[in-house]
């Protein structure tokens, strides 16, 4: 016996199986990101006064990425609509753009991540704090070269808009360094949350893109055999993609703007 309602909807629920399945899965994803958002709120609300950084991320890159994902959401649903109207080539076109958007998003994300890993906070023996981006070409065994400045206080480090852009090159003799740490997840609670939330989100972008690609590429022959089943698969993968966009819509202001 065939499994019923794999393609045609069941009359009393009005749903085909995969539609219900994906929404159930998305419900679990709401709880996953919900748990993470709750953790973010909790850790932020209970943080010490002045310990939470602001404007440590490039708003324009973040905004661009937001545009990229929104755009890809539009192309994904246009792709599905094309299939509904029987226009396979159009679907291929739109979905191809979706995949390009996914790559763009991940590309911009990696640029942002690298920026953080190159950004160092250096504590010197004389009590000063140097803060800036490592210049690997000029750095030697004896001297650390940063493009940055000396911060007057820890509080100054927390306000990102005070630096970034046109900073001088500082040379720091390594024997003057007490400790140095880059802005990786270990740096403080904010970076920990930033990397975890955006990292998990990026994994979902990768996963979604792989599924969309698989349906678009190797599995495209199903369109010939069973167009309704194929359209359903595209719809279901599109729902996942929209969810990924939805999460970013909240991540962007929460991490970049507030």
């Amino acid at each position, binding site marked *: 016996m065939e499994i019923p309602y794999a393609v045609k909807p069941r009359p009393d629920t009005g749903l085909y199986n995969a539609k219900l399945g994906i929404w159930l899965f998305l419900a679990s994803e709401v709880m996953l990101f919900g748990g993470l958002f709750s953790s973010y709120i909790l850790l932020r609300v209970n943080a010490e006064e002045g310990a939470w950084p602001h404007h440590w991320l490039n708003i324009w890159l973040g905004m661009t990425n937001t545009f990229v994902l*929104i755009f890809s959401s539009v192309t994904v649903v246009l792709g599905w609509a094309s299939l509904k*109207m029987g226009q396979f080539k159009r679907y291929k076109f739109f979905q191809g753009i979706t995949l390009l958007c996914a790559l763009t998003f991940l590309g911009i994300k990696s640029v942002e991540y690298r920026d953080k890993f190159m950004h160092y906070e250096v504590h010197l023996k004389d009590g000063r704090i140097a803060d800036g981006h490592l210049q690997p070409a000029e750095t030697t065994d004896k001297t650390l070269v940063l493009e940055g400045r000396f911060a007057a206080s820890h509080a100054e480090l927390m306000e990102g808009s005070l630096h970034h852009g046109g900073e001088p090159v500082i040379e720091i003799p390594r024997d003057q360094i007490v400790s140095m740490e880059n802005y990786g997840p270990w740096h403080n609670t904010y970076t920990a949350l930033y990397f975890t939330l955006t990292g998990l989100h990026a994994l979902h972008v990768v996963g979604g893109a792989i599924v969309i690609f698989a349906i678009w590429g190797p599995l495209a022959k199903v369109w010939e055999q069973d167009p309704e089943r194929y359209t359903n698969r595209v719809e279901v993968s599109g729902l996942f993609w929209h969810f990924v966009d939805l999460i970013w819509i909240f991540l962007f202001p929460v991490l970049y*703007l507030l």
Partner: protein
Amino acid sequence: MSDLHSPSAAAGAADDHSIEQGRKRIRTYLIVGVALMCGTVMTVWASLINFGSREINIALALFIASTKGFLVAGFFMHLISEKKMIYAVLSFTTFFFLALMYLTLFSMAHGNIVHIR
């Protein structure tokens, strides 16, 4: 293979009504897409304004984000015309998510003997 001979074209393209429906749909998607882009610009612009209290910035950013979220969920994910079963699943999910968030926050907001920093 031209689109006109593709499998469901026989069912779809021949029907003017569903083509019209399709065009309406696409129009809706494009309008929502533009609205989302505008919403993004507004979010950034609003965050740069100093309202005096941080709470207002936060509330505004979340309000705009929620509106964008509703647009994506309602129109792109077709939630606005979904079936009862899906609404039921999502209602319970929302309730439990809010319970997790608020109960955890309330339990750690006051009454703490040990400073949890």
